[in-house]
C-alpha cells in the first residue's frame, strides 16, 4: 500500500498558441485566469504534483472544466503533456518513445470510458478481446481470456451480441471486462459510472470495490460526484482550475476542508445530493407487472418469496397500488378463478418523488409498515425501507449526515 506506483511531477498541459509563454507563467505560479488573459492559452493542468500508491483507489474529483479529464489522459498520453513528468515504476512516461509507449498502454494501463466506448461493429466477445488482439495474441487464447473476463462480469451469455443490444450498466461491465482482460497494473477510469442511472451506478461502485479487494489494481478514478468519491476512494484529490487544491482521505476532506472552495463543495454536495431519497432507495423486489401476471401468479410469488405484500405496476412501470398476502389468499379462496386485482388492490401507500429530501420520508416510515415508494412521474424508481435509513445513519460519513439532520 505504501510503495509509490505513479509519481506526478510539475505536470502541465497548455492548450493554445502561446504555449511557451503560458508555461513560463505557470512556473511562476500564476493562475489559469491570469494566464488566459495574458497569452490567450488555456492551462488545463497547472503544475500538478502528487503520488499514487500501489493498490489504492485514487479519486480525482472536480467540476467540469477543472481539468480532471485532461489529467487522466496525460497518464497514458492520449493527450501529450506540455511539461513535467509522470513516473511509473521509475520510468518517465512523458519521455517514452512511441514504441515503448505502446507497450505501456498494452500491458500496464487500461482505460474505462464515460460513455463506454465499445466498438459498435464488434461483438461483446470481440470487444473484450480487443486489447489482446492488438497485442498479437492468437484467437483461441484471447477468446479464452476474454471469456473468463466476461464470466467474472456475469456477461458470458451475451458474448455474441452487439453493444447496442445491452443496457448501459451491462455495456459498462463490458468496458470494465475489456480493461481487465489485459491484466493491467493500473486502471484509468474516466467518469466511468457517471452515465449510469443511480441504482446501477451504486451497484457498479459496490462491484468495483469488491473487485478491488480481489485483484488489487492501482485505480485512478475521475468523478464529479463527491458521494462517489467518498464511497470508493482511498484518497481523494480535489481539482479546480487545473490545480489540485486538496489531497486526502474522505474523512480529511469532510472534516478538514483545505479552503473555502472545498468547504462549499462539501456543503453543497451534501445538501443537494446525499439528502435526496434517490441516493438511499433500493431496488423493489416484491413487485409484479399486472399486465403480464394475474393474481394467482402474484399469490404464488408472495408464497414463494415469503413476501407479505406486492407492489403492482403496469408494463410501463407505473405504480398502481399494492396487495397484501392475507387479503389476496382470502379473495382467491372465495372467488377462485374469478378473482382479480380489483378485489384486493389498495392505494393508501405513501409515495414520494425521487428528489424529495430524506428527512421528509422519516415520518412516512414511522406511520406505515410498508416501504415508501419512490416515483419519477408515475413510474417506480425504487423503494425506501426503514432499513435504508438505518444503514444511512450508520454509514462512514456520519458527520455530514448528522449535520444534515439538524437542518
Amino acid at each position: 500500500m505504501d510503495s509509490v506506483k505513479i509519481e506526478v511531477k510539475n505536470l502541465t498541459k497548455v492548450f493554445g498558441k502561446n504555449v511557451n509563454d503560458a508555461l513560463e507563467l505557470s512556473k511562476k505560479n500564476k493562475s489559469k485566469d491570469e494566464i488566459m488573459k495574458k497569452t490567450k492559452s488555456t492551462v488545463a493542468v497547472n503544475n500538478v504534483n502528487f503520488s499514487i500508491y500501489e493498490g489504492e483507489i485514487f479519486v480525482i474529483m472536480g467540476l467540469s472544466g477543472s481539468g480532471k479529464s485532461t489529467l487522466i489522459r496525460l497518464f497514458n498520453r492520449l493527450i501529450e503533456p506540455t511539461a513535467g513528468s509522470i513516473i511509473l515504476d521509475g520510468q518517465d512516461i512523458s519521455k517514452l518513445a512511441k514504441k515503448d509507449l505502446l507497450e505501456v498502454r498494452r500491458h500496464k494501463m487500461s482505460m474505462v470510458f464515460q460513455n463506454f466506448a465499445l466498438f459498435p461493429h464488434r461483438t461483446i466477445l470481440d470487444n473484450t478481446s480487443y486489447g489482446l488482439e492488438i497485442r498479437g495474441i492468437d484467437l483461441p487464447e484471447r477468446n479464452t481470456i476474454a471469456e473468463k473476463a466476461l464470466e467474472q462480469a456475469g456477461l458470458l451469455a451475451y458474448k455474441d451480441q452487439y453493444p447496442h443490444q445491452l443496457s448501459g450498466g451491462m455495456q459498462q461491465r463490458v468496458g470494465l471486462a475489456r480493461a481487465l482482460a489485459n491484466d493491467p497494473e493500473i486502471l484509468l477510469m474516466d467518469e466511468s459510472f457517471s452515465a449510469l442511472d443511480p441504482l446501477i451506478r451504486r451497484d457498479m461502485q459496490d462491484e468495483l470495490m469488491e473487485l478491488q479487494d480481489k485483484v488489487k489494481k492501482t485505480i485512478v478514478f475521475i468523478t464529479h460526484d463527491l458521494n462517489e468519491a467518498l464511497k470508493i476512494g482511498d484518497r481523494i484529490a480535489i481539482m479546480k482550475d487545473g490545480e489540485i487544491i486538496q489531497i486526502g482521505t474522505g474523512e480529511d476532506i469532510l472534516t478538514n476542508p483545505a479552503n473555502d472552495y472545498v468547504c462549499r463543495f462539501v456543503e453543497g454536495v451534501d445538501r443537494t445530493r446525499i439528502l435526496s431519497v434517490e441516493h438511499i432507495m433500493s431496488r423493489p423486489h416484491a413487485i409484479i407487472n399486472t399486465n403480464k401476471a394475474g393474481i394467482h401468479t402474484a399469490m404464488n410469488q408472495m408464497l414463494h418469496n415469503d413476501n407479505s405484500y406486492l407492489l403492482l405496476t403496469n408494463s410501463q412501470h407505473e405504480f398502481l397500488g399494492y396487495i397484501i398476502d392475507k387479503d389476496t389468499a382470502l379473495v382467491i379462496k372465495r372467488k377462485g378463478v374469478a378473482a382479480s386485482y380489483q378485489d384486493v388492490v389498495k392505494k393508501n401507500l405513501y409515495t414520494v418523488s425521487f428528489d424529495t429530501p430524506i428527512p421528509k420520508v422519516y415520518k412516512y416510515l414511522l406511520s406505515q409498515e410498508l416501504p415508501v415508494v419512490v416515483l419519477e412521474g408515475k413510474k417506480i424508481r425504487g423503494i425506501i425501507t426503514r432499513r435504508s435509513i438505518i444503514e444511512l445513519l450508520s454509514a462512514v460519513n456520519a458527520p455530514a449526515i448528522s449535520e444534515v439532520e439538524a437542518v
Partner: protein
Amino acid sequence: MSSILSVFPQLPIADVVEKLTASLTVSGGWFFHGVQVAGSTLTDGITEFLQAVPPVAFILIVVAASYAITRKNKNRILPIFVALGLLLIYNQQLWSPFIDTLSLIILSSLLSILIGVPLGILMSKSNRVQTVITPILDFMQTMPAFVYLIPAVAFFGIGVVPGVFASIIFALPPTVRLTNLGIRQVPQELIEAAEAFGSTEWQKLLKVDLPIARSTIMAGINQTIMLSLSMVVIASMIGAPGLGRDVLSALQRAQVGNGFVAGLGIVVLAIIIDRFAQKLNKKGS
C-alpha cells in the same frame, strides 16, 4: 468604364494551359504511352473475359447473385427485374456494347476506389492535406466533364483509356469526400479507446476507423460508380466503345427510337449496379 477595366491585358491562361499540356504530352510521352498500353490491355482482358461468358450463363449468374443477396428479406423484385432487364438488353442486340460499357465501368470504378479511398484516408488524418485537396475536388466536380476529354485525347489518343481517364477524374470526388467524412465522424471516445489499448496507427485504421466508417465509404463508392456510368455517353465521344456510342450515333442521326433503346440499356445497368451496391452495403453492417 471598359477603359479602366482593360488596363490589364488579357491573361494568357488558355495559352499557358495549352502549352503546358503540349509539353506534358511530349515530355511525359513514355509515361502516357505506358499507361495507354497497360490500360487497354486491362480493359481488353476484362472485356474478353466477360464476352467469353455465354449470355445465358451470364444472365443466370447475375440473377442467382441478386437472388442470394435479397434472400433474407424475401424481396423477389430485384431478381425478376435483373432477369427481365438483361433479357431485354440481349433482345435489343445490345449485348456486346453492354459488356463494353460494363468493363469500362468496372475498370474506372475500381481505379477510382483504389485512388479515392487511400486519398480520403490521408485527408482524414491530416487537416493540411484536407485543405489542399478539398478545392481540387471542388474543381474536378464543377468543371464540365467535356473539358477533361481534350487533355485525355492529347495524352492517350482515342479509345477506352482516355474514356476511363475522364471517368475517373469526374467520378473520383465522392469516394474521397465520403471516406474522409466517414473517418472523421468516428466518435472521439472510440478513437481514444483504440489508442488507450495500444493500437498502432494501422491497427486503429483497419480495426476501428474503416469498419465504423464503412457504410459512409460505401455510399461514396456507390456514387462514384453512378457517376462513372453517367460518363459513358460522354466518353464515347472520344471513341470509348459501349452503349454510349449507340446513344451518340442515334443522336447524330436523329434516331429517337435507337437512342431510347440504348439509353434504356444504360438505365437497366445503372439500377442493377446500384441495387447490388446498396444490398451489399446493408448486408455487411
